[in-house]
């Protein structure tokens, strides 16, 4: 089959057509897809409804782009990551929940919160009405610390526990993300204690700063991450340098401004871009990247414009009207992945198939050159309505989706090919410096780390000092295993294989990983 037949490539539903939307000859395929969803034994109602809605939206044509850009989409250099044809809401939002707590909401008919009960109830209400997937639950300690002394200590722990459990059960997704730190707070402490016991999927990031975060708080967080692979350790200093103080981490490890968000995420596949080149390093870096990045920006901007100019979302939504979200704090993502395959391919073309990204200094230099060049090119082209990042589309290392086969997430060194710990961090730190919109490195320690959390903190500090932005840390034999950037439970994976209903949509994505990328589930066995 011709790869350029725009209806057949794998990233889209079989009835989709970029230019025309659903046509009459695809109606049968479309109906079958709807029926398959209705009858799916593994989905609960909400998941079926979401899938149906996405399918309906995908009956529309995609926002118009040039032939060259569409060709790159068809060639899978540019990937639209199942956001669907017509972006009618932002991909991610990071509302200013503090404003909601202190002023209340007219639309939600909520008065200002006066105690811990009200504050947590307000937040849970807000999550329900979020205008995107619930990827950001707030800087929980900032939000709740002012209310923590409105009840006695035991009650506070009880309320916070119920809140945290309900936040997870209402939005059972490892893309739901809360932030704590950098200061030690009562809420931060309590939340770590609770999170360790509850073992929820909800993700957590500690904004860590060695001069601000107390050692004892950081060590509690280390002890947690060795048990439940969270919180992530975020380099607060590096992030404030790029974003100012009011940034947040949402979804996997995505950075955005508080009170703003991300219009859309469009992915760029370094590996597939290789096929656009004549195979040489200079052509890839100096011609293909500049040309394709320009087209990538075109695609991103077509989607932003559709959302901002066509859908009226920013005029009609209470989140914007009441000031919890502000349009000029938004930006969009260009999310790269498949760096390892591109580097290894280019090195092989240059007669050095042995020179692998991760272990060979020349390959590592090439990796850095590619990543830096991409960033420079991205910065040359304005992002539409991207005032949230000085008019720029934000550079992001994308963690991968289940349909990615034989392609490494983000800019990571492939699992199993990592050099020793220090060299691994030094190599990836160079790339973390260049990508400020979310990038993470995964580390796994053996059981001895649990006896010596100070040692892990030593490594976190040094890694941050080198430029590493996000570290996700786990230990072998823990109940949780890391699949790329999010959490899943091993028992859930087994159930997914049995097609039993799962509440956790992200576990589904991970189950896809299990089928296509079993190595991700073998992280537990890899050397640490």
């Amino acid at each position, binding site marked *: 089959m011709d790869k350029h037949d725009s209806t057949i490539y794998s990233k889209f539903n079989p009835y989709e057509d970029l230019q025309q939307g659903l046509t009459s000859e695809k109606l049968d395929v479309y109906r079958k897809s709807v029926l398959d969803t209705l009858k799916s034994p593994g989905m609960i109602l909400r998941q079926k409804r979401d899938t149906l809605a996405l399918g309906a939206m995908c009956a529309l044509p995609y926002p118009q782009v040039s032939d060259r850009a569409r060709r790159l989409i068809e060639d899978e250099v540019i990937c639209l990551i199942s956001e669907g044809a017509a972006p009618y809401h932002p991909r991610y939002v990071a509302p200013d929940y503090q404003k909601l707590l202190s002023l209340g909401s007219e639309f939600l008919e909520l008065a200002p919160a006066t105690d811990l009960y009200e504050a947590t109830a307000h937040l849970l209400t807000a999550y329900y009405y979020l205008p995107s997937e619930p990827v950001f639950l707030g800087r929980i300690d900032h939000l709740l610390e002012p209310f923590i002394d409105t009840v006695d200590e035991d009650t506070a722990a009880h309320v916070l526990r119920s809140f945290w459990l309900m936040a997870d059960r209402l939005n059972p997704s490892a893309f739901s993300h809360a932030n704590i730190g950098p200061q030690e707070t009562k809420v931060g402490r309590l939340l770590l204690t609770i999170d360790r016991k509850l073992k929820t999927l909800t993700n957590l990031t500690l904004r860590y700063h060695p001069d601000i975060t107390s050692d004892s708080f950081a060590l509690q967080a280390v002890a947690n991450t060795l048990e439940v692979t969270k919180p992530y350790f975020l380099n607060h200093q590096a992030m404030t340098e790029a974003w100012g103080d009011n940034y947040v981490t949402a979804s996997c490890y995505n950075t955005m401004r508080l009170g703003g968000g991300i219009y859309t995420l469009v992915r760029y596949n370094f590996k597939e871009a290789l096929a656009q080149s004549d195979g040489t390093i200079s052509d890839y870096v100096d011609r293909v990247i500049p040309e394709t990045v320009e087209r990538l920006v075109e695609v991103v901007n077509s989607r932003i414009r559709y959302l901002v100019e066509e859908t009226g979302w920013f005029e009609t939504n209470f989140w914007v009207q009441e000031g919890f979200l502000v349009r000029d704090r938004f930006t969009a993502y260009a999310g790269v992945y498949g760096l390892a395959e591109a580097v290894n391919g280019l090195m092989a073309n240059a007669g050095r198939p042995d020179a692998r990204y991760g272990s060979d200094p020349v390959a590592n230099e090439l990796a850095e050159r590619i990543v830096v060049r991409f960033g420079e090119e991205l910065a040359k082209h304005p992002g539409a309505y991207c005032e949230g990042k000085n008019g720029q589309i934000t550079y992001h290392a994308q963690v991968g989706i289940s349909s990615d086969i034989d392609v490494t997430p983000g800019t990571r060194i492939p699992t199993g090919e990592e050099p020793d710990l*220090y060299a691994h961090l030094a190599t990836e730190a160079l790339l973390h410096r260049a990508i400020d919109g979310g990038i993470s490195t995964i580390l796994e320690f053996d059981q001895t780390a649990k006896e010596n959390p100070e040692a892990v903190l030593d*490594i976190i500090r040094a890694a941050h000092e080198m430029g590493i932005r996000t570290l996700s840390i786990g230990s072998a034999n823990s109940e949780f295993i890391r699949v790329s950037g999010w959490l899943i439970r091993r028992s859930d994976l087994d159930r997914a294989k049995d097609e039993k209903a799962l509440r956790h949509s992200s576990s589904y994505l991970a189950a896809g990983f299990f089928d296509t990328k079993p190595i991700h589930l073998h992280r537990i066995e890899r050397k640490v």
Partner: protein
Amino acid sequence: MLPDWPCVFRTSLSYNGAAGSALKGMRSVGTRSRDEALRNESNEPAIGFVNKVLSQSFVDGPGNRAVVFLQGCNFNCLYCHNPYMINLCNHCSQCVSHCPEGALIFKDGLVAWNPEACIECDACIQACPHNSSPQVRRTNPHDLWLEIEPFAPFLSGVTVSGGEAMQQAQFVRDFFTEVKAQSNLNTLIQTNGDVPREDLEELLPVTDWFMVDLKAFDPAAHRELTGSENERVMDTIRFLARHKKLFQVRQVVVPGFNDSEAEAKQTAGFLMTIDPAIDLLFLRFRSHGTRGIAEAWETPGNEVMASMVAAAEEAGLDQVHRSI
């Protein structure tokens, strides 16, 4: 800021033990009481015999640590986990023919090891009849520091172990002096405690902590396990505790030797007479790496380890742990 990551451990050709006169007296196989042979009369820094440098360890003191393993030990433990570190090479050359890579050369009466060619198969160690290894490097304190410096940002400190680290006390002192001059890293010595008092005194100013192995409290068990008395070990523990330099006392729990609750109580009782805050760690014996009769010994189970901890706590110690 960002260190280079050269392969710091490889030197072109290191003639272990090729120090000429400084080595005389060091050739004999067997236990030695101290590193007199390494002392020289000038102010030159001492030369050390280094078996291995680890860039990362979570189990050799507080935080993440580099660990330097020095060759040579004055004990001869039945369950030694690194028997090839007991003696210095006597250049008998029996290992040379066992090397599949030609990484060992016998020249002018000395065995030389080429780390570039070595594939770390350890055939030489298996072949050595003297509980030694030809893979030992001579180095000076400054060069040893240069090996550790690139990853110093990741570390809390440096631990010197062995073998018996205190067998090369002067080298350790000079090395720690260098570490303190070049960094903020802390320093720790792992020792069996059978050490002359004056060596400890010399090390105090540059050593933040010591970890002392008390192989057994019972003198007979200690004698049988190690071939040595434990009187001086206990003196060392008292001395270091008095100087606030005792990080931890460790005991490997060996079935049939020191795995009884009574032994744990006695050990803890002894430590109680010094300071109830002394940290005591029980480690499981594991047969990995051992030779001879210990290969057949069993690893104590969780029940035994828990009863040891409980007995030591009952005796009044505040901080008793056991290994995983």
